[in-house]
């Protein structure tokens, strides 16, 4: 955490699972960020993060844009913008090109087709079913008592894959339990679980009119297994920004800067 004094605009992404705050300098470079688990008291949490950034030396009364599910509660924000626009903006600035952005968040997943100029051309959302979201990984890894990193490594180390046919998180969990009871190897099941999420997201991406390159943002982008399997299923290389989880907040900060 440095360079807070050079911050000229701020973005807050109040997501379903985490809250992110990003500060950008006059050129729009990401110079400061914070990331916390989501607190149910959204506004108080945002205030606290603002105190933190000020304590780091950030000037007062900078432009601020809020995004994410909790954006409406952040009364201090000058404007509220949806995650779709913010993610597209952040990723386009970071990577310097358009393409298809897949954002897999804690409670939904989105596919955003971004033009070369950084505008949103089209988007698709899965907000009806947890099976294509980070929540799916949380539920099944929690059930296996595996931390997220180990969960991804296990999937990648597997020498095979067990198909998970259930289309719903809750039923996938019970399918996993009965597969374990039948003696199926854990690592193969874990790979199958990753595959099932990837297939859902891939279908969403194809439906939105996939336009390469494929870019990934959101918390789930941190999973190496998801990245690998997604590249395999879509037969596309996956381009990753440096901080996939911060792209919403970064885009919000860029919009606040007017950059």
């Amino acid at each position, binding site marked *: 955490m440095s360079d807070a004094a050079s911050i000229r605009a701020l973005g807050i992404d109040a997501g379903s699972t985490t809250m992110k705050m990003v500060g950008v300098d006059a050129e729009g470079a990401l110079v400061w960020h914070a990331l916390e688990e989501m607190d149910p008291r959204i506004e108080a949490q945002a205030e606290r993060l603002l105190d933190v950034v000020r304590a780091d030396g950030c000037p007062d009364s900078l432009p601020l844009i809020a995004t994410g*599910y909790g954006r409406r509660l952040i009364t201090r924000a000058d404007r509220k*913008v*949806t*995650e*779709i*626009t913010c993610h597209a903006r952040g990723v386009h600035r970071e990577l310097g090109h358009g393409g298809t952005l897949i954002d897999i968040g804690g409670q939904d997943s989105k596919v955003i*087709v971004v033009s070369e100029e950084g*505008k*949103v*051309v*089209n*988007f*698709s*959302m899965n*907000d*009806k079913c947890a099976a294509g979201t980070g929540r799916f990984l949380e539920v099944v890894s929690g059930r296996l008592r595996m931390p997220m990193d180990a969960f991804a490594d296990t999937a990648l180390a597997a020498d095979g894959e067990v198909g998970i046919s259930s289309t719903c998180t809750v039923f996938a969990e019970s399918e996993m339990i009965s597969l374990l009871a039948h003696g199926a190897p854990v690592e193969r099941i874990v790979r199958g679980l990753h595959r099932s999420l990837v297939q859902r997201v891939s279908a969403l991406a194809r*439906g*939105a*009119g996939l*336009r390469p390159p494929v870019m990934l943002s959101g918390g789930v982008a941190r999973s190496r297994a998801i990245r690998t399997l997604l590249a395999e299923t879509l037969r596309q290389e996956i381009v990753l920004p440096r901080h996939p989880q911060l792209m919403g907040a970064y885009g919000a900060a860029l919009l606040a800067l007017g950059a």
Partner: protein
Amino acid sequence: MTLGLAKYQHLAVSFLGRGALRYERLRQEAKLKRKGSWKSERFAPPLSTSPRLKELISLHYLKGRTADERGPVAWVTSGAPVEFLVALGYYVLYPENHGAVCGIRRVSEKISVHAEDAGYSRDLCSYARTDIGAALSGETPVGRLPRPDLLVACTNICQTVLLWYQVLAAHFRVPLVIIDTPFLYGEATERDIDFVRKQIEEAVAVAERVAGRSLSESRLMQVTRRSKEATELWLKVMETGKAKPAPITAFDEFIHMAPIVEMRGEQFTVDYYRAMLQELEARVRQGSGAVLRERKRLIWDNLPIWPRVRWLSEKLADRGVSLVASTYTNAWGELADLVDPEHPLESAAKVYLHPILNRGTGHKLATMEKMVRDYQADGVILHSDRSCKPYSIGQMDQRERLGTAAGVPALLLEADHNDPRSFSEEQAASRLAAFFEVLEA
């Protein structure tokens, strides 16, 4: 109930009811005329014909309350040929319209539950569930629905109606006529038209037998002429939406379409749309839009989300978005040219073969692309209707084609036309917010 008492009740209801409805209309009309009585920052005042619409619909259902004690009653699907029934003196009830009334009045869920309790799956169309629920329980927001003497189901809108009307036939123990319309992937062949014409002729014979009277050809021609005239007027009404700003939105049309659907072939329907058209043309001349500060124009695909028409119209109007046309309301106008009053049965066969839902998804895409051009629209909202599979199928591809090939932003909005349980306000609001940003970028 003795016949005498029934007649007395009917007279009391229709005499007093008519009077009350007329009084209410005059009151509303006077209110609309008073300057400053309309306060909205979103919308222009309602059309001065609106109170008349309310009177027409209320009167239709008021007549329905006792219709089965006075003459023959038919329940029909929204795409069924109705002119011969009107000419035979049937009181015609549209369960789909009644379903929409239940949706707008927010009682569709409560009534559907009666059907669900009887074992009908929630995956079944919410109109069918509302209708079967109403038939089983007798519950309705319109007082009472008349018992049918005849059921007419035409497959040009979906295949659900086949089984839905069989359920009704078993419940009411009345004859069911099915008119099967071959699906059109391209143009209709002579054989298709002949096939449908023969079925309509058979339907006429059944309807004559049930009604106990025979069809007068001149009366059928008269009804068909009125039907054509009203359809042409309705098309013109919708086409005023091409003006910028649009004097009418598709949300208004969802409400004002009731007469063209359920009162086709009546003179008062023709008169109603003529008056409405006049008023809209005047609004175009004055440059007054239905949505104040119209900034963006959208096309709507699929049925409305009846329980949320108002919510959605306000949500759009808040951002200066006017819904200038819809494939749904257009379906009751676009076939006007095919109606030929000189050959009523032959032309009915053609007309009822060609509804948008009986044609390929490519045709619907072409219709939407044309609408975008004609109405100078900035985008399309595709309502992915959980209940209406034939209307929703192909929307993923249609959205993709509109977006990438034609450069028209299109949003897929998941909901249901009549079941509020399949609608999530927060998620819909989220998608709309993102879509507005795309439109404004």
